[in-house]
C-alpha cells in the first residue's frame, strides 16, 4: 500500500516538472522581447523594464527555473503581474470552489452513470441503443452551450437557480448547493454518458463470464448476481474510466467556471491567460497537475482495493 503510493508518486513527479518548466521554455522561445509581446508595443519603457525584471528575463533559463523551483518547494509560486497578489494565496483561495465542483460532479456522474449502465445491461435492444445515442450527444454538445441553455431555462425563464456567482459552504450550505447545482450538472453530463456506456459494457462482459453462470447454477438469486457479483467485478474497469472522467471534468471547470462566474482555479487560469499573467497561469497549471496526480493515485488505490489480483501483485 505505502509501496504503491511511493511508486506512483515517483512516476508522477516528472509531470510537475514538465508542466512547470514549459512556461520558461516558451518564454525563451518567444521571438523578440517577451515583455513587448506581453504588454504590447506601445507600453512605456519603464513598465517594460519592470516586467523584464519580474520575469527575470535578464537571467539565463536554468537560473530562472531554479529560482522558481526553490520558491515553489517553499510554497512561493511568485506574484501576480497584475494584482500583485501572491500566486499561492490566489490558488488556495480558489481551490475550494473547484474542488466543490469536481466532488459534486464526480458524485453525480458515478451514481447516475453507473445506474444507467447497469439498467441498460439488464435490458437489451432499445435501452442499449438509447445509451449509445445518449453517449454520443453527451460528447457532442459543447459544455459551454449546455451551460448557457440551462441558464436560459432554469435561471432566466423559471428563475429557480442563480445564473452566476458562488456562495461558500461555510456561509450558507443552501446557497452553496444552489449556486453549484447547474455547473455541477453541466460538468457531469459528458461523464455520465461515457460512464453509462462503459458500465453497460463492463456489466455485459462480467455477466457472460463463467463464474456468473456457475453462481446461477448454485441457485444464487439474481439480485445478488447483479448487484453483488456483477457490479463488484464491473467496478474494476469502471473505476479507471471514472478517473479519466475526473481529469476531463477538471478541464471542463475552465469553461464552466467562466460561464457561471465561479471564482475557481479554472476561472483564475482563463483570466490569467487573457491578461498574460504568466506566474498565475503557471501556478494554476501546476495546481491542476497536482490534482490530476492525486486523482490518479486515488484511482490506483481504489483499483487495488477492488481487485484482489492487483493487491497481491
Amino acid at each position, binding site marked *: 500500500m505505502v509501496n504503491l503510493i511511493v511508486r506512483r508518486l515517483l512516476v508522477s513527479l516528472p509531470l510537475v516538472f514538465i508542466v512547470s518548466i514549459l512556461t520558461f521554455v516558451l518564454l525563451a522561445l518567444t521571438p523578440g522581447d517577451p515583455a513587448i509581446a506581453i504588454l504590447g508595443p506601445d507600453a512605456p519603457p519603464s513598465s517594460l523594464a519592470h516586467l523584464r525584471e519580474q520575469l527575470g528575463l535578464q537571467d539565463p533559463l536554468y537560473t530562472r527555473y531554479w529560482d522558481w523551483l526553490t520558491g515553489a518547494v517553499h510554497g512561493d509560486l511568485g506574484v501576480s503581474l497584475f494584482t500583485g497578489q501572491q500566486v499561492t494565496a490566489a490558488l488556495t483561495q480558489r481551490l475550494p470552489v473547484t474542488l466543490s465542483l469536481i466532488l459534486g460532479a464526480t458524485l453525480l456522474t458515478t451514481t447516475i452513470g453507473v445506474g444507467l449502465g447497469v439498467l441498460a445491461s439488464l435490458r437489451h435492444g432499445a435501452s442499449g441503443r438509447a445509451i449509445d445515442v445518449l453517449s454520443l450527444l453527451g460528447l457532442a*454538445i*459543447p459544455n459551454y452551450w449546455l451551460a448557457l*441553455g440551462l441558464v436560459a431555462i432554469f435561471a*432566466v425563464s423559471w428563475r429557480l437557480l442563480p445564473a452566476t456567482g458562488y456562495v461558500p459552504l461555510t456561509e450558507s450550505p443552501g446557497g452553496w448547493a444552489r449556486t453549484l447545482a447547474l455547473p455541477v450538472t453541466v460538468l457531469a453530463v459528458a461523464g455520465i454518458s461515457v460512464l453509462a456506456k462503459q458500465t453497460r459494457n463492463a456489466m455485459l462482459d462480467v455477466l457472460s463470464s463463467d*463464474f456468473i453462470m456457475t453462481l446461477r447454477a448454485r441457485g444464487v438469486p439474481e439480485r445478488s448476481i447483479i448487484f453483488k*457479483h456483477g457490479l463488484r467485478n464491473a467496478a474494476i474497469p469502471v473505476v479507471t474510466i471514472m478517473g479519466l472522467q475526473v481529469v476531463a471534468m477538471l478541464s471542463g471547470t475552465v469553461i464552466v467556471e467562466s460561464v457561471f462566474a465561479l471564482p475557481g482555479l479554472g476561472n483564475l487560469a482563463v483570466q490569467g491567460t487573457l491578461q498574460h499573467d504568466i506566474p498565475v497561469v503557471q501556478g494554476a497549471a501546476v495546481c491542476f497537475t497536482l490534482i490530476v496526480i492525486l486523482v490518479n493515485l486515488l484511482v490506483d488505490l481504489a483499483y487495488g482495493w477492488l481487485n484482489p489480483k492487483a493487491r497481491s501483485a
Partner: protein
Amino acid sequence: MTAGADTIIESVTSLEPPMQEPGFIRRLARRPLAVGSLAFLAIVALAAVLAPLVAPYAPNSLDLLHVLQGPSWAHPLGTDNLGRDMLSRVIYGGRVTLVGTAIGVGVALVVGVSAGLAAGYTGGRSDWIVTRLADMALAIPAIMILLVVLSVFGRDETIAMVSFGLIISPVVMRVIRGATLTVRDELFVDAARVSGLTGPQVIVRHILPRISGVVIVQASLLAASAVLVETGLGFLGLGVPPPTATWGGLVATASTYVQVQPWLLVPSGLIVALTVLAFGLLGDAVRDAATENWLGGPTQPHARPSLRTELHAPAPRTKEASEAHLLSVEDLVVAFPGPRRVVDGVSFDVKPGETLGLVGESGCGKSMTALALLRLLPGGGSVESGHCWLAGRDLIELSDADSRRVRGSEIGLVSQNAIASLDPVFTVGSQLGELVRLQQPHASRAEVRRRVLGLLEMVRLQNPAKLVQRYPHELSGGMAQRVAIAAALVGQPQLLIADEPTTALDVTVQAEILALLRSLQRQTRMAILLITHDWGIVADMCERAVVMYAGQVVEVASVDDLFHQPLHPYAEGLLLSNPRLGRARRHLAAIPGSVPPPEGWPAGCRFHPRCKYATAECQLTRIPLLEDPSGRLSRCIHSDRLRTKVLAG
C-alpha cells in the same frame, strides 16, 4: 478543451485496430448515418469556402435598426446585437473553425502517425518511449497546457491549434502503434522485407495502406475534439478576436444577451454540436465498416438439414415411468436463433446414486444438454421441446423461482475451469458463506463459518481456516476445483453435473479429484452426470455411458459392454483413437474430420461423412436410435457389422 473533447480523446485510445479491406467504401455508403454525416460536413465546408457567394450578407454589415431579432425571411437565423445576419456569420465562422480544426488534426496526424509507425515497426526502446509519452499526455489536462502557451504567446489561433495537435499526438501515436504491431508480423510484410525493401519503403508501401482505416477513424474523432477545443477557445475569448465571426465567439455573444434574446443560443451552438456529432458519427461508422469485414462479416447462410420426424423404437419416457429414475430426459430439443438445433431429441436416464458418462467430442451438445437441465442456456438458447423429470418434476416446466431453488439444492454443477468458475473478487470463505446462507438463511455467523470449514474439510483441503481468506487467483487448479466441488455440495444435491471436471488439471491432480468425487458419492449417495471426452475417466468412474454426436445420442450402453464391443462406429472410433486406453493399443485410428457445426449437419446419418462403414443408404434417411434385445441402444444401421468385432477382452 471541454470535458467532451477529453472524453472523445479517451475513446479514441480504446479503439481496436480496424483494417481497411476491399469493398470498404461500399460498406460505408450503406450506412445512412455515415452518408448523412459526410453530406452535412461537405455542406458546411463548401459553404465556408464559398462564403462570399452563398452568404446573404457580409459577415460584418451592421444594421442597428434590426438588432437581436428572431428568425425572419430577411434573416433566416435572426440577427445579433449589432444587427448582423446570423446565418452569414455562421457560414463565415465555419472558415475559422474548419481551418483551426484542420491545423490541429493535421499536426496530430503527421506527428502521431509517423511516430506511431516508427515505434510499432521498430519496437524496442523507441516503442517504450512512445508508450510512456502517451501515458503522460493523458495525465495532463490539455487545456492547461494550451492556457500556458496562450498566456505566453498571446491569442494566436494557429499557435493554439498547433499546440493542441502536439499535445494529443501521443494518443494518436499509441493507436497507430497498436495497429502497426498487428500488421507488422503478417506474411506479406515479411515477404516485402525479404524481397529487399528498406524499412521506410515497407512502411509506406505495405503497412500504411493497411492501417489507413485506423487513420481515417482517428482523423474523424480528432476533428470532433478539435472543433470543441477551437470553439471553446473562441468562447473564452482566446481565439480569433472580434469582429471576425467565429462559432465560439457567436456563442459568447449569445451568452451576453441570453436574457434579451435566448434564440441567439440556438444557431450558434447547434452548428458546433452538429459538426462535432457528424465527425463523431463518421468516425464510428468508418470503424464499424472497417471491422465488419475484419470480423468476417455476417455469416453465410448454410444449407439446412432436412428435419424429418424421428423414430423412437425404445419406449418413450413418461412422468410415471420416470419415477424409478432420479433424472429422465425425454426427446430434449435445444435450439438457438438461426434456427440452429444444438441438441436434437436427446433422451437418457440417470438412476439414483449412479455415475453416468455423457461422452463425445466438443461441439456434440453435451454441455448444452447439461445447461438445459439447469435452465441456464446462454443468450438466445431455449428448450424447444422435451421433458427433464427430476424426481418426478419436469425441470423444463418449473417457474424461474422454482428452478433457481432446484439449482441451489437438488442439482449441483462442477465445471471445467475451476478458477474461472469462482468470483475473482471475493474470498473462498465469503463465496461459500453466501451459498451456506442461501440454504440456512437464519444461521449465525459462527454457524456459517463452521459449515464452510466443514465443507472444505469434506473436500479434503488442508488448513481450511487459512484457506477461507484466500482469493481464487491464489489457489492452484486442484485446490480451486476442490473449492468448486465444495460449493456445489452446499445444498446437498441428489444430482451432481460434472462438466469435464478434470480437463484443465495435471494428470496426478486429475486422479485425486476423481478419487474425491468417488468417495463423496459413497458418502452422500448422490448421482453424477459426468460429461467428458476422456474414456479413461469413463472407465474409472461410470457404470453406464451415453455417447453423443452432433446433437444426438448415438449409443447407450454399460461401460463394460461399450468398451468390449461398441455398437456405433463413432463410439468405436472414439475408443480406438484414445491413446490412454491400454486395451486399444493395437492401432491408433483417428476419426477423420471433425464435428460439423449445427448448420452443417448432413442429411441421413450425421456421422456418415466420417464413417468407414458408411454406405449409400446412410445418406438417405434419418437413422433411428434402436434398442436391441439386451437393452443396448445404437443409432446405426450397420451395428450388426460391429457385433462381429470385439475390441478387447
